[in-house]
């Protein structure tokens, strides 16, 4: 019988612990597929976050080194500086990268550290139980914003990826989502491009992925997927934020 669907080689045969409707499982799979397709499983080193994806090393079948909360990018920097011919990626949530880890991330982007960041934005601190994240939207509920986030009281949702665009060393920044088959395909394309940019030694690449958290958003998985389209993309619009890879120009010349 013809096999039409396989588990990516770069995923271990473990069952994901993520909640129903959570985007992490899809994103793990996309990253693993990209690693397989680029043939880099044996030269890739991943750095998981503290957060829901802290156990990512149970799923990715590549070398994985755990970082303290918010420190994945500096840890990845250290690994890459010792092994510049390996592929180093971090996998981080919005609390990890856009709150406690902001400083290290901005400066790594500015130095043009040749690493790839997978930034999963679900607008909440999932693992600790739904506290306000830097990315929580105005009016969105959380366990530390009674009555929902009020910007006058709690500040505004932070667009970290946009901030990173002004850093001279960032070469590829794109925001995608994993709430529909079409968006998932786009997300995979972006992830592959980000890894390719690193393979070509271009500098800092990051893909921000809008992902549902039905558990902490207190929505059904379907409602959560819709919420990404109807509300989240209003504040965090999808698309390329910065692209200095030159890949698309080349393609243009060829066609």
């Amino acid at each position, binding site marked *: 019988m013809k096999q039409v669907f396989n588990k990516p080689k770069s995923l271990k045969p473990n069952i994901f612990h993520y909640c129903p409707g959570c985007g992490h499982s899809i994103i793990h799979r996309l990253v693993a597929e990209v690693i397989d397709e680029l043939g880099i499983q044996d030269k890739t*080193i991943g*750095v998981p976050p503290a957060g829901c994806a802290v156990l990512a090393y149970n799923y*990715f079948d590549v*070398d994985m*080194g755990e970082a303290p909360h918010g*420190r994945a990018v*500096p840890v990845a920097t*250290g690994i890459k500086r*010792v092994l510049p011919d390996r592929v180093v990626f971090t996998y981080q949530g919005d609390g990890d990268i856009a709150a406690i880890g902001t400083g290290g991330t901005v*400066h790594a982007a500015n130095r043009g550290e040749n690493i790839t960041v997978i930034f999963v934005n679900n607008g909440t601190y999932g693992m600790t139980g739904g506290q306000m994240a830097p990315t929580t939207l105005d009016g969105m509920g959380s366990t530390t914003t009674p009555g929902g986030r009020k910007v006058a009281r709690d500040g505004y949702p932070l667009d970290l990826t946009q901030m990173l665009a002004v850093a001279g060393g960032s070469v590829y920044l794109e925001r995608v989502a994993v709430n529909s088959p079409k968006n998932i395909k786009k997300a995979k394309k972006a992830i592959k491009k980000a890894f390719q940019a690193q393979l070509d030694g271009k500098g800092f690449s990051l893909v921000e992925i809008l992902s549902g958290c039905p558990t902490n958003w207190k929505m059904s998985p379907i409602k959560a997927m819709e919420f990404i389209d109807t509300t989240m993309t209003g504040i965090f619009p999808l698309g390329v934020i910065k692209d200095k890879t030159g890949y698309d120009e080349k393609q243009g010349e060829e066609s």
Partner: protein
Amino acid sequence: MTKQLMRGSHVLGEAAVRAGCRYYFGYPITPQNEVPEYMSGRLLEVGGTFVQAESELSSINMVMGAAMAGGRVMTSSSSPGISLKQEGISYLAGQELPAVIANMIRGGPGLGNIAPAQSDYFQATRGGGHGDYRCLVLAPGSIQELCDLTYSAFELADKYRNPAMILGDGLMGQMMEPVEFPEMVDLKSLPKKDWILDGAKGRSSRIILSLLLDPKALEAHNYKLTRKYDAMTAAEQRWEEHLCDDAEMVVVAYGTAARIVKGAIKRVREMGMKVGLFRPISLWPFPMKPLNQLSRRVRHLLAFEMSSGQMVEDVQLAVKGQAEVYFYGRPGGVIPTPDEVAHQISHYYHNAHLPLGQASQAGGAA
């Protein structure tokens, strides 16, 4: 190899490079800025990597990454910066990653000042960061020893897969003394590390972590670390005894304080007081056994520190009540003169009615 006159901070850097250190991640702070400055140039010459990070937090985490990837790596800082690095040091210990951290202590708490002090003894020897762990802590008393201990720190860190700390102070960093360097380590001759993250080529993938959610699993890991610390305690105690053979009283002091004590001992011996020096070189593991043995013979010990009293607790633990332990401390970055220390020794010596002998010319230079 001939002797050359060099500043402590540069000696620290050069000894690290000769020990095979090729990666340095740091952040400026007085009084140790000459270390990153030296490393920025020297590592270029030897094909290494220097990164001036955006913070102490980032620099210690870069150290962590470089250690995971198998590099000989170090960072350096001074007290407030070392406080910021404590989170990372706890992870290094938990993940069993080798790295060398140098702390050129300045006066504290808080911003304190930039004068030489010994007020980070507790922080260095008692953990500093969270969790059950130990750092190997080495305290040089001269520039040559700073060189030698820095060199060994890299070997010991690799041997035990544990962070090692060089504990100096601003004086040790600024002072110039003649130094003879060991030969440059041949990086290819270093033992292969079979645990690093360098890509799962021809082997199954590896994980380096400190998260062990099952209490039984973490307990087993803690016991494994404890066995390692026990092995370090058994094998790595270092100390110097100076004029202890006939001593009625022994001063216990390390680093810069011990240098001052040598000058003070010279003075009190000229007055007939039989006083020696016990100088811990490894602060963790503290040389408990030799100090305990000494205290069976010498019943009066004076702990002297440039702090308000930290190492003195280890002295008390070592002697187990079988000798009187006096204390003299000068916190705040004050460096007392040998005369001032001699005055204190004399005070305790006479108060204890210890016998005076022949005035002697023995003793080290101030």
